[in-house]
């Protein structure tokens, strides 16, 4: 039942940008369906239109061709049930952790009430930052800052979580730890996740499905389920069929990467 519902739906979507050197086709004939509470990773070379895909879903821009729908409604503007996590945490440097997490309430409604602070305490605890509420972003490590960014996105309890290379600015160890924690969060409170990444291991560890894109024009070249059950751990990742899957993804990506 739940899986039958489509959360995100791209139908023949094209996106052309007018640039100084003429029109630039960022996306071409993209068809993509993401079921509710599915975790989908999007892999692709730099500039292939991954962030554009995410912005279209978020309603931050409208496609020049085709149709983008969220829960069967055409996306015409940003929706309340969609949260975004960016590559850089982009926190407010003057606001402490609590105020950064409650920022959506303050920004949207102009005030932060007691229920907002309760909700903030919840998500701050969920991302493991309890006790750091009064810290300023500059006093936190990169990983902790990104946790705040995730808590801020979770604060309004979105049903769809859009993540644009959220861990790519972190060191490898922190990155792995954050991946496992994201999975825990996702299992505790299921959400539809569109997770953009450059990292094959990250995509394999996290996602139900991996979308591979090619650059110029941005097209979907592969759409494959990850051959792995849940919950996942290090040893499951070492299974031969998973290794083969990762190798296959690598081939697809290298074939699509412009030659050096």
């Amino acid at each position, binding site marked *: 039942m739940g899986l039958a519902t489509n959360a995100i739906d791209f139908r023949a979507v094209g996106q052309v940008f007018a640039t100084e050197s003429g029109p630039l086709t960022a996306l071409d004939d993209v068809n993509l369906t993401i079921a509710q509470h599915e975790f989908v990773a999007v892999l692709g070379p730099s500039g292939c239109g991954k962030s554009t895909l995410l912005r279209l879903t978020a309603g*931050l821009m409208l496609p020049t061709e085709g149709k983008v729908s969220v829960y069967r409604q055409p996306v015409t503007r940003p929706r309340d049930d969609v949260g975004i996590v*960016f590559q850089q945490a*982009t926190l*407010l*440097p*003057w606001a402490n952790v609590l105020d950064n997490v409650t*920022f959506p309430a303050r920004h949207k409604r*102009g005030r932060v009430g007691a229920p907002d602070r309760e909700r903030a305490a919840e998500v701050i605890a969920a991302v493991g930052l309890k006790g750091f509420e009064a810290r300023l972003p*500059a006093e936190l490590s990169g990983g902790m800052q990104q946790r705040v960014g995730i808590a801020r996105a979770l604060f309004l309890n979105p049903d769809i979580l859009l993540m644009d290379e959220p861990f790519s600015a972190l060191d490898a160890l922190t990155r792995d730890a954050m991946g496992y924690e994201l999975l825990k969060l996702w299992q505790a409170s299921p959400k539809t996740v569109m997770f953009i990444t450059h990292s094959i291991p990250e995509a394999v560890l996290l996602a139900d499905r991996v979308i591979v894109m090619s650059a110029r024009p941005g097209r979907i070249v592969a759409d494959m389920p990850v051959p792995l059950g849940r919950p996942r751990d290090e040893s499951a990742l070492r299974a031969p069929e998973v290794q083969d899957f990762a190798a296959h993804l690598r081939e697809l990506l290298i074939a699509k990467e412009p030659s050096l």
Partner: protein
Amino acid sequence: MSANADTSAKAALTQPMREAPSLSLTERLIVMPVVLPLLTFVIILVLWEAATRVFAIPSFILPAPTRIIEGFSAVTPSRWSAHVWATLRVALIGYLVAIAVSLPIAIGLAKSRLMSRALYPLLVVIQSVPVVAVAPIIIVVLGTDDAPRVVITFMIAFFPLVVSMTTGLMATPPELIELSRSLRAPQYREITQIRLPYAVPYIFSGLKISVTLAVIGAVVAEFVAADVGIGFFIQFSTSMFRLPQAWAGLVVLVAMSLFLFQVVSLSQRLFFPWSLPKERR
């Protein structure tokens, strides 16, 4: 033996303190911003005094600091304060008017491409007009009270403020603007809750430049037409060949600029410590 172990333990404990010295409040608010520059100033004075004596420089070319100090007593303290107040008042009013006018203009320039296309060239033209040359015209048009002097001060202090504010308002990470749009928040909150606070470091660099320019503006205005104020005093003293006295006026002006500059820096340190680079908090 045990006492020895105790001291070495203490030394070990204080070791990290020494590596990363954290400044006390007094150090942060008084020693760093006030005492250190003052010290530099005193050293320059001493060298200056020595130079005038060693090379026997006549006082109408370069009076010794001691002669300049004598120049201070040429006028009564109450007259001094009248001069200081006249200049300070014009500088501050012109400065505040410049801030009040530049902020909405900067917001318009940052937010609207149309407004920036329409207004920016005009601002550059205004900035290119040599204020010293238009000052007499302004005085003729506006009379000889504070108003023309405030306008002249405003014209000199205004441009750096607009530029720094506009730059600051556009320095916001685009992701935060996208976050704001994704929340469908009212437009003005994008300004008040994101762009303006992000612009604070830029705004303060503009405020620091402009506060000393405001003093220059007030003095320029007094050169043209005034019967009180430090600028008037300097011009008057020079015309009477009382050079040490003119230099005393100059010292007062420098002190005034320095003081205003420190007030601005200090308010940034006090009210917006997060806006300073980490090592200078």
